[in-house]
């Protein structure tokens, strides 16, 4: 009797044989699972966070008050150094991957609820930023397109005038752009979008990686909020200061 019932149970477990190997390789299975996709989101997001720090520290040279000498020397180094060039290909790839994966996840998540609620009270249980990562990301994307077109494209493919040291005078282009109040306003609004994206994204990336710890998680959350304020504030301060300087 006992044997029979335990055998029944055993069969019940096999009602749904799980095919663990959907794809050619275990790695493809892992990376196409819901958790694997979040892993990609999180790793690319963290890479972009590191990039933001590097980018901001470079931007501060715009404020050097030397007519662009140090900034132009820096941009020359950033575009000609082979190591930086290699890393920048990684950056292009990771940002594309972050965007593509966000679309893949968005579509999957949408299809998981074919009929939506009539009344939905999201603010009762979650932060606004966490519910609007896609919109915030889109704000960043629009910014990126404009930003790359105006500065990155000009530096790489445009015919920039040379400064007195023979470097491409990107400083000139940047300071021209930052004397336009609308450009500065757009820049600041997009940095607010970035701030909210990071206010959720920073800590979220660690949760996706499986990091949850009594000692470290509270620190990661606080650090994430501080990071989400300080970095976009730093980015936004530069055009604002240059705009004010352009008036005088």
């Amino acid at each position: 009797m006992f044997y029979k019932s335990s055998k029944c149970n055993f069969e019940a477990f096999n009602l749904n044989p799980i095919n663990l190997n959907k794809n050619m390789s275990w790695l493809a299975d892992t990376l196409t699972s819901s958790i694997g996709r979040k892993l990609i989101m999180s790793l690319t997001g963290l890479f972009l966070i590191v990039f933001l720090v590097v980018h901001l520290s470079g931007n501060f040279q715009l404020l050097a008050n030397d007519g662009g000498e140090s900034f132009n020397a820096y941009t020359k180094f950033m575009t000609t150094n082979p190591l930086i060039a290699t890393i920048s290909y990684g950056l292009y790839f990771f940002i594309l991957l972050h965007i593509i994966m966000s679309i893949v996840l968005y579509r999957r998540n949408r299809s998981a609820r074919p009929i939506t609620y009539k009344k939905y009270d999201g603010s009762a249980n979650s932060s606004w930023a966490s519910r609007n990562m896609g919109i915030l990301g889109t704000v960043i994307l629009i910014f990126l397109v404009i930003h790359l077109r105006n500065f990155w494209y000009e530096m790489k493919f445009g015919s920039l005038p040379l400064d007195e040291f023979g470097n491409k005078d990107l400083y000139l282009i940047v300071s021209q752009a930052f004397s336009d109040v609308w450009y500065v306003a757009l820049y600041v609004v997009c940095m607010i979008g970035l701030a909210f994206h990071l206010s959720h994204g920073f800590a979220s990336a660690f949760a996706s990686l499986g990091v949850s710890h009594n000692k470290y998680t509270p620190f990661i959350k606080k650090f994430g909020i501080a990071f989400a304020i300080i970095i976009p504030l730093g980015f936004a301060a530069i055009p604002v200061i240059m705009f004010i300087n352009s008036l005088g």
Partner: protein
Amino acid sequence: MKFNLKIWRQKNNKDKGGFKDYVLDGVSKDMSFLEMIDILNEQLTEKNEDPVHFDHDCREGICGSCSMYINGRPHGPLREVATCQLHMRSFSDGETIVIEPFRSKGFPVIKDLAVDRGAFDRIIQAGGYISVNTGGTPDANEIPISKTVADEAFNSATCIACGACVAACKNSSAMLFVGAKISQLALLPQGKVERKERAQKMVAQMDAEGFGACTNTGACSIECPKGITFSNIARMNREYLSAEVTSEK
């Protein structure tokens, strides 16, 4: 008390369904939410109308049968309370209450507010058990486990599988449920033996059921009637990713 109820009515899974308005008067503030629906159903039956179908069983917050998405939140406005334990005093007289079924691709509507949560059973069948021999009933004091870890496993084990996490999540993700079920076993010595395969199989089944991925909004944990902590999701991510990398298959 008097209430204006906006209730989702749907004849069966094929039916399109829609909202229907009811006015219910003479409700006691001490009635539970389900008792309030019982009264409505009595009136409907007397009028020869089809009563509102909904899931319930224990009515004491332990079975996880009751579902209902009330005014934009699963199990209504209170924290750590299932619909059956929610009382009408939590609402104001004359209030309009919108009542919808839990919405998810993984939870097809059976009728009205009753949904099929069989997907959760299939996820458990995929790996939410211990199949290695663990001997006879051991002396509880013989198991080498710290109080902290035992408490953590217990927190995970209090999940009643009601599906509020799925209903609350903007992505309709089942990760709090699956995270809790993976955690409760992964934390205990008996469950450690099969932890890798368990995480792999349960996550694969969760994905196959069509649930969404997690954005770490934390809505699930806030709305959970049992207060299952959000850290269960991070633990599942950890269990799953390390299993994928280190397992033999």
